[in-house]
């Protein structure tokens, strides 16, 4: 792994590689998300219980999935940053955290809006919503710590430690919140439970999930490229990428 990873530890090589991926990821994201959402919104049949309100699922479930996925990705980047001292991995933390936080916000917001017609209230202390809210706090904490230091390197390492501490805690928090929820209420959560989905609903959902996967990857790629340029701005290659002829040593 080290041999494969090593060239990409250099900013320029990673920037190039990400540049190759970015158009593909963005294109796939646009196609899949559009197809998934349009299918889900206009062509999928209404649910026999929830009517058309269930269509929020086509955004809610994918964003919730990748808000958790992004946190795992961020923790892996943090581990690489701390163990192998690879700077690109440090920057990846700063690239993933805003994307993950936005996805968490989207999952939280759609969950709350879905809750209004289903539960009759904008905010229900449902296990899924509560753990999303906590995940949002965790993301904000990592971001706040990353940008709190004058020295970017120190901030990145501190944020990496926090992300690792967080990822150990996420399953515990998740479990405790579900357990707490089962203590205090039982009826409401079953409304979201879908034991089996007919294929007319499942296929657009799967397409939407794939779309959000590409979207997450594309957004992270965009931000990681920016972060690399920002940190390597003193190098001639970065200046050239930004359309400026660098003239060192004239």
């Amino acid at each position, binding site marked *: 792994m080290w041999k494969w990873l090593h060239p990409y530890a250099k900013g320029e090589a990673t920037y190039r590689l990400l540049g190759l991926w970015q158009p593909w990821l963005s294109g796939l994201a646009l196609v899949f998300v559009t197809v998934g959402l349009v299918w889900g919104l206009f062509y999928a049949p209404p649910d026999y219980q929830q009517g058309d309100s269930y269509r929020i699922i086509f955004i809610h479930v994918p964003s919730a999935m990748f808000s958790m996925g992004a946190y795992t990705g961020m923790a892996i980047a943090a581990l690489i940053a*701390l163990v192998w001292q690879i700077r690109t991995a440090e920057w990846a933390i700063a690239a993933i955290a805003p994307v993950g936080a936005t996805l968490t916000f989207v999952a939280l917001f759609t969950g709350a809006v879905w809750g209004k017609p289903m539960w009759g209230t904008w905010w229900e202390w449902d296990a899924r919503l509560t753990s999303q809210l*906590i995940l949002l*706090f*965790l993301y*904000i*904490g990592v971001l*706040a*710590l990353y940008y*709190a*230091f004058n020295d970017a390197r*120190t901030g990145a*390492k*501190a944020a990496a*430690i*926090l992300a*690792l*501490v*967080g990822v*150990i*805690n996420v399953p*515990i*928090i998740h*479990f*405790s*919140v579900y*357990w*707490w929820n089962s*203590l205090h209420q039982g009826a409401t959560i079953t409304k979201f439970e879908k034991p089996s989905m007919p294929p007319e609903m499942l296929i657009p959902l799967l397409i939407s999930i794939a779309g959000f996967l590409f979207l997450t990857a594309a957004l992270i790629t965009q931000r990681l490229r920016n972060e690399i340029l920002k940190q390597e701005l003193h190098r001639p290659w970065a200046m050239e990428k930004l359309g400026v002829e660098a003239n060192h040593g004239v």
Partner: protein
Amino acid sequence: MNKASSWQLMTTVMRRDLAVALRRRSDIINPLLFVVIVVTLFPLAVGPGPDILGRIATGVIWVAALLSSLLGSERLFRDDFLDGNLEQLVLSPAPLPLLALGKVAVHWLLSGLPLVILAPVCALLLKLPFEAWGTLMLTLLVGTPMLSAMTAVGAALTVSLGRGGALLSLLLLPLFIPLLIFAAAAVESTLVGTSAYGQVLLLAGLMLLTLMLAPLAVAAAIRVSVN
């Protein structure tokens, strides 16, 4: 460096921390007063009826404990960072996580343990039914070491920042949620007359896990901050 002298170094660090802290008693007493005052405020805000107070007592005491642990967190590393002692610890031949564990233990002795002793007073003020007092103290006894260890992680991360207060609470409070849930549930189950064994054992398990892993995180954070 052999094992015996590592232990020696750790006890030396602990003795020194203890001596320094005992010379500035207000730092120990103020967070405790904070807890008592917060507990006093609640009956004034929601009314002194025993039904509502008894219901929220555990939550209020535990939340006050969480917040007070943040108040006293600066004491852990700030002075050592400013006068260069932290650097000496990093350079010392003893494993840094061990020294961190020593500092956490002293911090718990001066902030967690007094809280356990203070708990009956708070329970009395909030009219918590007497049969739950024991469980409340037990959850505090098992939970506060975890609190000290996690606070140490946050304090070590923000020690070089100077103004870490609000940031620290943002970092730490979400991580305290499982602790809060299980502690409150333990007292709750005593109140409804069932055994609180399961919840307390879960808390104990979490405490052991935290005490095992947190010193490693503290050590890593100190290395980042000192550098």
